[in-house]
């Protein structure tokens, strides 16, 4: 049987959810019999292949225009899109800047920080432009599976993989369902 292709990518997050994927530990070896991780931020190939994957996984919130591009690319190239973690599902910690506004937050971080002298807000054309309001992934592309958690536990992620491999959309039992 052909292996199920999975790609992961990250948006505005802390990489904690990817760490939690690795926390699956030795179970990942068994998983590799059935799936192929085509690309991820920690592999050589960073973005999902053009010919597409079955499952696309996104960590992180939508914080800037670059995040929107990455989210859209993943959506186009996968059949089932998984929002992994609180940031991808709710916006979470990055979205707390909504309480002060993006402009204020940038100023506080790059100009007014006590340790900064003559600070400048970065504005390189290579960087994405911060959006006014940070949101979860579902506010820019359609999401099929949400796995909240900051980060979700390795067990929750493993459960999601096994359910998806069995052809089911996972419904998380209470022990795997959390917001922190």
């Amino acid at each position, binding site marked *: 049987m052909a292996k199920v292709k999975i790609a992961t990518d990250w948006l505005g997050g802390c990489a904690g959810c990817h760490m939690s994927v690795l926390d699956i530990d030795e179970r990942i070896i068994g998983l590799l019999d059935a799936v192929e991780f085509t690309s991820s931020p920690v592999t050589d190939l960073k973005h999902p292949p053009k010919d597409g994957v079955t499952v696309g996984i996104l960590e992180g919130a939508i914080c800037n225009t670059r995040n929107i591009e990455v989210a859209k690319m993943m959506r186009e190239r996968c059949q089932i899109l998984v929002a992994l973690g609180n940031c991808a599902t709710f916006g979470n910690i990055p979205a707390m800047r909504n*309480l002060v506004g993006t402009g204020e937050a940038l100023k506080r971080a790059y100009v007014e920080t006590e340790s900064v002298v003559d600070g400048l807000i970065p504005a390189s054309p290579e960087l994405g432009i911060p959006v006014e309001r940070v949101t979860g992934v579902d506010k820019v592309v359609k999401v099929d599976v949400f796995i909240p958690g*900051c980060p979700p536990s390795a067990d929750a992620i493993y459960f999601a993989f096994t359910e998806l491999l069995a052809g089911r959309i996972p419904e*998380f039992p209470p022990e795997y369902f959390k917001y922190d």
Partner: protein
Amino acid sequence: MEMVNLTINGRSVSAPSGSTILKAAKDVGIDIPTLCDHPSLTPIGACRMCTVEVEGQRTLVTACTFPVADNMVVQTESPRVVKARKLVLELLFSERNHICPSCESSGNCELQELGYRYGIDHWKYPAITKRFPIDATHRYMFLEHNRCVLCGRCERGCGELAANHTLGLGNRGSDSIINCDAMTPWGSSTCVSCGTCLQLCPTGAISDKRSAFMGRDTETERVKSTCNRCSIGCGIEVATRSNNVLRIEGDWEAVVNGGRLCENGRFAPLFESRKRITKPLVKTGDRQTEATWDKALSTAAELLGSVGGAEIGAVTTSDATNEALYLLSLIFRDNLKVSNVGMVNGAVPVLPGLPCGSLQDMLQSDIIIAAGVDPVSDQPVASFFVKRAVDLGARLILVDDKENELAPFASKKLGINEISTAADIAGEAASPFVLYGAGIAGDAMRALAKLGDKALFLALQPGVNTYAADALGFNNGFTPKSAKVLFAQIGEEGLTTGHMLAGIDDKTALIVQASYQSPLTQRADIVLPATIWSERKGSLTNSEGRVQKVNQAIKPQGEVKSDWEILSLLAETLTGKPPVTSLEELSTLAQQKITNKEI
């Protein structure tokens, strides 16, 4: 009681008429989710979490307010109900800041629990992220408006349980916030720091500063016990983690206080800064040195054996357990034949043969006489009940010659020599209640006693366990002067200078049982280190004469022992055999003696 029969989720249920659907369901184990409702508060039906489907009703109804009726058919988890609840949750999560990882309440939050229960795995609506202030001006708590769901539990608790009316709802619509005295910073408001609001808040909007971020419920242990800060004896629940007390909460199930606590009971014990004594000390020459328990106790026994009963004195704090008071009486009064025994503070003589009322009874009364008591400062939870009764329509007659903090709530103020007038007015009432204290005596007492069976009476004792100390004979004019050997059981008491023990003769041999270092322990020939409230076991008797358990919440520091344990060992050293074989036996003996006292 008239019962009605209804069906809930296909089950036949019978419930008292007038009860709500929520109550009827709960009684048979059907769990309807709630948020703004709390069993100790008046339901207001504000949050709509508890919506259920009632056959024949056009719209869903709120179970917390809707009364049951005969033949009613209720569905509590039908698809329509679940859909409505999810919508309510979606809307609650879309307002303010419900980003749990940065919230003090995560893991202890009713809103979060509901999100889990109904599988809210993303937010349908974009979150409104208006920023609200944080009020951290209060000494013990902070109010984080950004986590508030406007359930109004804090406000109702402040009004209905503490009867303090500090909290209210300010602004309008999505700008609404809970506020203190119409927009006064909490720290400078009329708040009396009872913490009722803290205990009621279902979310991270009100948090305890001291224990914030120090452990969620799953990481803490809870032990029920009894507050030892005054003679009300409020039921408490002590939350601990790794042998540290994090927080004290009111026990909702406690008959005495029904969850209420005051500042002294809830917060003060956690701000203790005196130095503990953790090992027995014995004076050799003019220096105290650490000693074993054996050495300290045998030295104490020698001292006590070196003089006759007439030359011994024994004095106790009123914060000793029933068990310790019983043993103190056994050792000193019975065995050593000491008559110079007493307590650090006096007792209110309980009027003989009159019906005793509880604080809860006060809420049903129409006239309250408060004579010679100032519960606002001395027994604060009692004052919450007085003020609540006044809110419910009772008239308060204050009888006191001193300034009294109940004065603003009184409809009549009389001097103690006018007490008969108060009794006459109460005599005309349907259900009068008499609260009296150390401020009245003699004739004034007799004037009140004339009310007889017509009224309920409660004597508020000035000390924690004074009722028991009095019953065991410790209220009989102790004088330190005539004692050659003095046993002072001080416990946690902080003795102010000029106190009766300050007049001890220089030559008196002094054995002190105490928890904290003080001039008295420094002066002592033998110091026996005792547990504090959180470490001890035993029982206390409150002003009503109700015997309540004190349970150990954390392990004792160093080598300290419970007050009764120390006395049990002393008795064994003196007589060669232990006076009792177990705490249970001792508690029973003590309780018999205390509650059989002739009044």
